[in-house]
Each structure stands twice: as structure tokens, then as C-alpha cells.
């Protein structure tokens, strides 16, 4: 590859790694550590993206006094106007970004709380089915109800980083990576503590946990909320990166199944493993994406289907040969205490 293409490839990998890391770690908290099979985590990812799509443009319209236009119907025009203003007003832009991310965290908490409801009452296959169904509902509503994020067409999102000018592409990716790493480190703080140990205990045996005084219901709610917040942040960052929110793009395939693969490859119950797993899988997928076009010339069908076959086969092989993943779960390394 020439240098330009190589740079593109590397930066692409970095941004998708950063975004997916949040989803797979969020999933690991819910499934790996607490044993809640969330096959509907795409709902939280979509939630974060919908929030960005819904809020940023309208809020900017309000601040800049753009009236007489509908954000959804005149989307392209409005966004162009806003971006022109944001390009010269980095303070407002950053404020908008921070405010939106705060809102995203609240939405993540709310979605986590809602999805915790079935997690408390059901388990195993019934829980998985309910969560898949809820995620489908989020998707159906997002695609059907255009005031949220443009429905079937989606919306463009004003760019709070327009002021970066030529450096926008690199700047945003570095920012997203930074946010992702900082969040990951915070999650590690939370997991490497008695709380992390408690999650694993609840996963291993709910009844015993109850009998020694643990409020298992609360623990499950907290796990779902924490995982959901991470996934929502990921969805929001993705929307900011792409400067658009397209509800139809948040499919089970892209945001639940691939995240599950990353978690399983890396090792459920081991966040470092999941980080490695995410990196490997994202790298693989970027490689496929980049070489897809050369393949398309030879194949009488869309190379995308090979990606599905690849994912399906790898999942099955992992289930048969290495269900625990690359790195095994380790006892909670509680910080500050020497383990002997």
C-alpha cells in the first residue's frame, strides 16, 4: 500500500478499535463478569447515536438562532449553516460536545436501567430473547420515527470539531482514542476492586450471594447500567466521527455479534484480553474492508457475504475449541493489596 492508503488504514483501524473497545468492554462487564447474556447491546449503542443525532443539531440551531427551518426536513442546509458557525467558534463547539456527551451518559443509564428489568427476572435463553427483542424495538422505532434521527434516511450531525480545519480527520480520531483509553482505564479501576469480585460472585451463584447478604438485584442493575453507558458513549462517538446518525446502520450484525466475537476471542471475564481481542478483530475487519474491492473483481457476488461466513465460522470454531478465549479469567487483582 502506498503511504496515503496506509495512513488511512491505520487511522481507520484506530478509530474503530477505540469505538468497539467501549462496546466489547461494556459487554464484558454484563456478560463476562456478571453472566448476563446481552444479545441486545446494539440498543445502547444506537441510543447513544440517536442522542447525538437528535440533540446536537437542534441545540446548535437554538444557540445560533437559526429559525424557520426544520432540522430533519432541511437537514443538509441547517447543518451546513451550523458548521460554518462552529468552524470559527471552538469554545461553543466544545461546550456542545461536552453537553451532548453528558446527555449520552444519562441516556445510557436509562437504557441500562430498562434492560436491567428483564435481567432481574429472567435468565439464560429467555433473557437473551427478551434483550434481542428490546434491541429490535429500539431499531424499529429509530427507523420509523424520523423526529429522533431522521428515520430511514438518517441525519447529518453538525461537527463540533469543524474548527480543527485540515487537522479534523486526525484530531477527531486522536480525541476518540483518548476518550476510549481513559474510559477503559476507569473501568479497570472499577473492575479491579471488591465490586469486580462481587460481579463474578453473583455470576457464579446468585443464591449463595443472596444468602451472604448481597443485594443481587442491585448488582445486576449496576452491571447493566455500566455496560450500557459504555456502549452508548461508543455509539455517540461513532456519530460524531461520521458526522451523521443513520438508524438503519445500527444492526445486530455490526454492533452485537461483532462485539460478542471480540469479547469471546479476547476472553470473557478479562478486560485486557477483550482489548486484545478487539484490536485483532477490528484489524481483521479493516483488512477485509480494504481488500474487498480487489476481491469484488473476481467474485460473482458481494464480498460482504464472505465476511458473514467468516464471522459465523470463527464464532462456531471458538465455541468448540476455545470458549474461554485467548486470555483466561484471573482472580480480581485488587489494587493496593499484594496478592500472594
Amino acid at each position: 500500500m502506498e503511504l496515503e492508503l496506509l495512513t488511512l488504514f491505520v487511522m481507520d483501524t484506530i478509530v474503530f478499535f477505540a469505538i468497539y473497545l467501549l462496546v466489547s468492554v461494556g459487554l464484558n462487564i454484563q456478560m463476562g463478569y456478571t453472566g448476563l447474556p446481552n444479545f441486545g447491546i446494539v440498543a445502547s449503542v444506537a441510543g447513544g447515536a440517536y442522542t447525538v443525532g437528535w440533540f446536537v443539531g437542534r441545540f446548535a440551531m437554538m444557540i445560533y438562532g437559526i429559525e424557520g427551518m426544520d432540522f430533519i426536513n432541511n437537514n443538509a442546509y441547517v447543518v451546513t449553516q451550523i458548521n460554518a458557525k462552529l468552524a470559527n467558534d471552538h469554545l461553543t463547539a466544545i461546550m456542545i460536545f461536552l453537553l451532548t456527551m453528558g446527555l449520552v451518559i444519562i441516556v445510557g443509564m436509562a437504557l441500562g436501567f430498562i434492560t436491567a428489568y428483564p435481567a432481574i427476572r429472567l435468565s439464560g435463553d429467555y433473557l437473551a430473547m427478551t434483550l434481542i427483542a428490546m434491541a429490535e424495538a429500539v431499531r424499529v422505532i429509530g427507523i420509523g420515527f424520523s423526529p429522533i434521527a431522521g428515520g430511514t434516511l438518517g441525519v447529518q450531525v453538525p461537527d463540533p470539531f469543524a474548527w480543527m480545519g485540515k487537522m479534523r480527520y486526525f484530531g477527531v480520531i486522536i480525541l476518540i482514542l483518548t476518550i476510549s483509553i481513559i474510559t477503559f482505564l476507569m473501568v479497570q479501576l472499577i473492575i479491579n476492586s471488591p465490586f469486580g469480585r462481587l460481579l463474578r460472585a453473583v455470576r457464579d451463584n446468585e443464591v449463595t450471594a443472596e444468602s451472604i447478604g448481597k443485594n443481587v438485584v442491585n448488582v445486576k442493575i449496576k452491571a447493566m447500567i455500566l455496560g450500557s453507558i459504555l456502549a452508548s458513549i461508543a455509539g455517540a462517538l461513532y456519530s460524531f466521527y461520521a458526522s451523521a446518525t443513520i438508524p438503519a446502520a445500527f444492526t445486530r450484525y455490526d454492533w452485537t455479534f461483532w462485539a460478542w466475537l471480540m469479547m469471546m476471542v479476547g476472553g470473557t471475564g478479562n478486560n485486557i484480553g477483550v482489548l486484545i481481542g478487539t484490536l485483532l478483530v477490528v484489524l481483521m475487519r479493516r483488512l477485509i474492508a480494504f481488500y474487498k474491492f480487489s476481491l469484488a473483481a473476481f467474485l460473482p457476488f458481494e464480498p460482504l457475504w464472505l465476511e458473514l461466513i467468516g464471522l459465523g465460522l470463527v464464532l462456531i470454531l471458538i465455541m468448540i475449541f476455545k470458549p474461554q478465549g485467548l486470555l483466561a479469567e484471573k482472580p480480581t487483582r485488587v489494587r493496593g493489596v499484594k496478592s500472594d
Partner: protein
Amino acid sequence: MLPPILIEGLVYANIITLLSIGFTLTYLTSRIPNFAQGTFASVGIYVTFTVTKIWGLNVYLAVPVGFTLNALIATLIYKGILRTLKKHGASLVSLMISTLAIELLILAGINIYADIIQAKLWIISRTFLLKYLDFSYVGLPGIFIVLTIFVLSLTVVLYLFLNRTKFGIAMRAAVEDPDLASLLGVNVDLVSTVSWFLTGGLAGIAGCLIPLWFQSDPNTGSMLTVSIFASSVLGGLSSIYGAILGGYIIGLTEVMGNSVLTRLLGGWAAYYRLLIPLTILCLTLLKAPRGLVGLIESIQTRGYKLQLIRRR
């Protein structure tokens, strides 16, 4: 004469019922929720496409082909993948992930097939509707007649099979208590294999007939997954008859509910059609997890209790 919306509802309900019977059957015998059930139907869709558009035969000849092909695929999946996993002691979550992975594989296969046909044979394969190939009798569409007769006779056949044949009874034993059943000489593995065979076959038949009514593309089957969950869970995931009951309720509610809502609220309501089975699914799982059959059973036991109290 039957109102057209009822005909549409019954056709859809019959299809969902066939798929729910299969879903419930494999769930009961191997304890695995088959997330790929909807996609099994998609194979049938493309069998019909092949039989009619490529081989130029009568559409109803696709049915035995679809049955056989699908039954074989399902059996292979069970024997090759799922049974291997179970032998390795795979957890429920692992098995569920595997059915999701299988869904991806089948989806990819169908899409590749459709793509190749379109590229090499220049036939439009990614979306089609074969209603015009259907026959009509006393003003009713052929698919309606065929499906209704088929599902009704299937119910009777299944009843006889499960209650009057040795293998059927063995099947019920294996579902109720696999360990005890195997001690008594029932080949539990054979029971599972047969149930996957049947499930695939029924899905194949349903899939074969779908293009006679509905606009079909490679994703049509997968889009039925939620409705299949809903009807099986509503039925209670505990008996075939529950699946049939659930299938009819969900199928009719979905179609007629959609029609009512679009009439009341406008065309855009059609986007939200999936919310009907979704809501029923969530409500059932959260409020009455044993489904309708469970509710019926608890009413019966309450009836016994009342009888006992009255006798004192």
C-alpha cells in the same frame, strides 16, 4: 366470502405457526432456542425461486424439494455443530451463539446464491413475488387453501404421532425427562435428530410457500424471527399445541393489528408493525413466562384446588 384481510392474516398465521412448531420442537428436545429458524425459511424461499424461475416447473413442486433440502440442512447442523458442542459441554450461551452463527452462514449462503444467479443467469433474484403463479379455487388463493389444509392436517397427524405411535411417545418421554427416558431405552439422540429433521422440513415448506404471497428477498426469513419467538413464547414453549395457538394469535394480531393501525393513524404506522409481536413477546416473558399453556394449566390447578376445598 372471507374478507381479504382475514385471508392475509390466516396465510401469515399459518406460516408463523409452521415455523413456531419447529422452534418449539427443537427447543423441547434439545433445549436450544434456534435463532436461525427464520433463516431456515429463507432457504425454502429460494428453492421455490429455483424450481419456478430456473427449472420452470410448477411452484407446488418446490414443496417436497424444499422439505427435503431444509430437513437435511437442519439435520446436518444438529449433528455436525450442535451435538458436537453439547458433547464438549458447551454452555447454553455458547449454543445460542452457535445458532446465531449458523444464521449468518445460511444468510451468506442464500445471498451468494442470489447474487450468482443474478450475475450469471440475468434473472432478478434479489426480490420477487410469485403470486401470479398461484392457482385459485372458489375465489380463494391456492396458498390459502393449501396452507390451511396442511396445518390442520399436520395438527391431527402430530397428535396421532405423539400419542399413538411408539416413537412419538418416546419423543414425549425424552422431552419430559431425558435421563429417565434413556434409562428406559429411548434413544434420546435419535429423538433430537428427528426433531431437527422435522423442524427443518416444516420451515422448508413454510419458506417454499412464502413467495406465493409475500414480496421475498434474502432477508425475508430473518425478519420473521421476532414473530416466531413471540408465538412460541406465547404458546409457552412447552407443547406443540401451544405453538399452534401462539402462531395463530400472533399471526392474526400482527396482520390485523397492522391494518387497523394504518387505517387509524396513517401509512407510517406500517413501519412499527414489528412492535406488535415484540410487545407481546416482552409482556409474556415478563408477566407470564410460561405462556398461554402455563396460564391454562394454572387455571386448571386452581380449579382442582377449588374442588378440593368444596369437598371438605
